[in-house]
């Protein structure tokens, strides 16, 4: 049962992370391949602040604010780039952030990571805290869901889709496309930061190895598999992917083969992504073409 709680918490953290990416990738058509950077910034900032005696609520606010600012700083130069070039720039950005975590040893302790990240007293630690932590994570995921639904089921959300479909048309119709996209990236980064914060205080140990391209691909897969541009899609995707990832741990593999098979895990996700793209590009849940917020 405790193990089940653990998996649910991870699912919910990934659902927040995937929903935040969906705002950029699904609704706005921005292929952000560096989304893990904001998850990492949230995790490291909150961990470092709370390890240095800042009260946890303040550390959380500081962390998601910094993630949002980082999002704006990324958006302003990179939004001049289109399509693939934006993707490459975000990929490089995530690598830069990863290298900062790894090399700024005076602040981040480098590859040794940050152990003993505190939790709020009222949640506590150990196995007995799992149900309460689950409840808090569920609350955060629900808030994220409601917030994003409000943001996207709106004229703003429609303008995101217009930009996704045809940016020139959006401009011809008087939309300030850079501003609209910057806002989407900032909101997406804040929520990714929130997911990172919860992760850091849940696992209580973070290291640079947690924030690599591998995790970006995992969250990308959650969004694409679940159904990009839909509200439940990334949540469904996160649950399916995390449960699947846990399930493959239990495949009985003779111990002498483990060292050959283990690296295949990453390949499996890549394989699923390719199959999805070929067979069901819209994901498990497909986007409704009808929008009309007045009918909502």
């Amino acid at each position, binding site marked *: 049962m405790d193990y089940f709680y653990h998996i649910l918490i991870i699912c919910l953290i990934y659902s927040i992370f995937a929903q935040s990416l969906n705002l950029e990738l699904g609704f706005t058509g921005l292929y952000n391949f560096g989304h893990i950077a904001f998850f990492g910034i949230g995790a490291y900032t909150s961990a470092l602040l709370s390890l240095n005696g800042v009260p946890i609520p303040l550390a959380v606010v500081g962390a998601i604010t910094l993630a949002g600012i980082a999002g704006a700083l990324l958006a302003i130069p990179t939004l001049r780039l289109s399509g693939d070039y934006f993707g490459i720039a975000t990929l490089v950005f995530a690598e830069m952030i990863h290298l900062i975590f790894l090399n700024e040893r005076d602040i981040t302790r480098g590859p040794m990571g940050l152990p003993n990240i505190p939790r709020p007293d009222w949640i506590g630690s150990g196995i007995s805290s799992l149900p309460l932590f689950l409840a808090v994570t569920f609350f955060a995921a629900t808030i994220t869901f409601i917030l994003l639904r409000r943001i996207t089921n709106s004229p703003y959300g429609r303008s995101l*889709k217009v930009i996704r479909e045809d940016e020139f048309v959006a401009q011809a119709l008087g939309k300030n496309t850079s501003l609209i996209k910057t806002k989407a990236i900032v909101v997406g980064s804040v929520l990714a930061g929130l997911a990172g914060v919860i992760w850091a205080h849940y696992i209580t140990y973070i290291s640079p190895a947690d924030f690599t391209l591998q995790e970006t691909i995992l969250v990308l897969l959650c969004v694409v598999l679940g159904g990009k541009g839909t509200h439940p899609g990334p949540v469904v995707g996160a649950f399916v992917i995390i449960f699947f990832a846990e399930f493959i741990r239990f495949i009985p593999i003779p111990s002498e083969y483990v060292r050959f098979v283990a690296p295949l895990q990453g390949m499996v996700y890549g394989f699923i992504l390719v199959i999805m793209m070929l067979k069901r590009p819209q994901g498990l849940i497909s986007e409704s*073409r009808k929008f009309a917020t007045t009918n909502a």
Partner: protein
Amino acid sequence: MLKIENVSKSFGALIAVNDVSFNLGDTGISGLIGPNGSGKTTLFHLITGFYKLDTGNIHFLDQRINGLPPHIISRKGIVRTFQQTRVLPFLSSLDNLITAAPNQLGENLLPLFFQPSKVALQETQNCEKAESILETLGLLKLKDSPAGDLSYGQQKLLEIGRVLMADPKLIILDEPTAGINPTLIRHLVTILENLRDQSIKIFLIEHNMPLVTELCDKIFVMDSGSLIFSGTPSEVQNNSRVIEAYLGRMADAADA
């Protein structure tokens, strides 16, 4: 209204628009004609801010607009369609129109949380306006269909509807009748004439000469990047330079 002064634009060695000057004045419907490659679409891109001009100035309602980004020019009242229809294929016809409504409060994030009823009211009003435009275009029954499912001609009409939704002062149409059937062309002519009666100015590129002479109050003729003539339809038809540059080649094409 729209005044263009000594506007030039080159792409490398190619001079696409060469020192063009004219003033639309109070003309209701103005036409821009000229052979393929004469710089018409480039000029439209310059007016709407999608291209930056090399030299010259463009004034709209006594304000200089060159150098402004496309969305600001659009908000000032110059709204365009594209040569290749560019509807938003995955959005419904209705959403294709509503999105063009100007000054939408709900396109900002904070009002979504702090003034939701105001946002909803504006959305309802925009929805009604969009439905009435769809009705005049004869597309109301297709309002929930994805725009990508509409026929080519219907998409052209939808694009014009989208422009109307933006409360334009000057509409810029790049080949509005290209590739649509004669019945729809008549429908389109009626719509454009109604707009002229509502004192919305129209500036269009068109290759259909009988239509241009029927519809336009004034015609500008371009050839190889330069403005070679402007005048009323009958003046244009009788001008030897125009016939040589444009109508002459049309006749050759007809012979062939």
